[in-house]
């Protein structure tokens, strides 16, 4: 009986002058995964930028330009730890359905990075470069506030304020 009803549905719709898109108001299950919302795309970009920042700090701490002073090293490690906290909090807000969209199977579109750009390739990361990256990050996050939901805006503003304090600590 159920099979008969399902088979008869197109005929019924046809006689009523309807298309399937008129009959169902929800998402079309045959259309594939719906496009990601703006706030999800923003979150992906901010996460990618935060990952780039973490890469920069790791290179500054362990790369060729590793600071000789223990105090500077301690400071960089403390700031790195805060960026790792940012990343955890940002990722906790991101729920993307699995699928082939994006490049790495992690739901991130290619080039999702924010102001941080692509991952750093050089082994020399100076304090000055970190300072510039922090300043750019704070500005980028504030720029994104206008178009995201209030709760996400507050998280981004808080991270921007944290980045701004890092600029000062790094001598800015």
């Amino acid at each position: 009986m159920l099979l008969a009803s399902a088979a008869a549905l197109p005929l019924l719709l046809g006689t009523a002058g309807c298309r399937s898109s008129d009959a169902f108001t929800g998402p079309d299950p045959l259309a594939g995964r719906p496009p990601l919302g703006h706030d999800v795309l923003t979150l992906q970009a901010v996460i990618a930028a935060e990952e780039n920042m973490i890469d920069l700090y790791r290179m500054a701490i362990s790369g060729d330009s590793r600071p000789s002073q223990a105090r500077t090293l301690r400071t960089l490690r403390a700031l790195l730890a805060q960026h790792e906290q940012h990343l955890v909090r940002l990722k906790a807000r991101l729920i993307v359905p699995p699928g082939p969209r994006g490049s790495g199977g992690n739901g991130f579109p290619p080039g999702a990075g924010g102001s941080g750009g692509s991952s750093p390739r050089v082994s020399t990361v100076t304090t000055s470069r970190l300072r510039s990256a922090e300043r750019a990050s704070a500005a980028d996050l504030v720029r994104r506030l206008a178009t995201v939901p209030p709760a996400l805006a507050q998280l981004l503003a808080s991270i921007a304020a944290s980045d701004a304090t890092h600029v000062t600590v790094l001598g800015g």
Partner: protein
Amino acid sequence: MAGAVAALQAALAAEHAAIFGYGVAGAHLTGSSQAAAEQDWTRHNKARDTLAAMISARGAVPTAAQASYQLPFRVHDAPSAIRLAAYLEDGVTRAYLGLVAVSDQRLRRFGAMAMQDAAQRAASWRGSTQAFPGLTSPGPLAP
């Protein structure tokens, strides 16, 4: 509009509290610390005036300062005064976070920039930074 005015009033109340608190802290500080406290006190006075003007421009009456505020701990020497200054800035940072949630995009930006200023002052007083300024901070001084 009502949400924006309420958020502006909360920020103004936090600025009033900070102005009072810096008066207490400054009395226990000397030298460069006292100069820094005076500088920050002046900044909070300017911020108070700015917020009051923004509230008036929206047709509301700016909230008035209270006669006194409850301090979160006893302030009796320079270290406790410095801790109070950091506490005040944390409260101001948290208050401006409310502005970041309003629908007016210019107010969001204004609140975010004010958060950065307050977080930097808090870090300067505390000698360390925080991962989430405003989100994990206590509120401003209570009357």
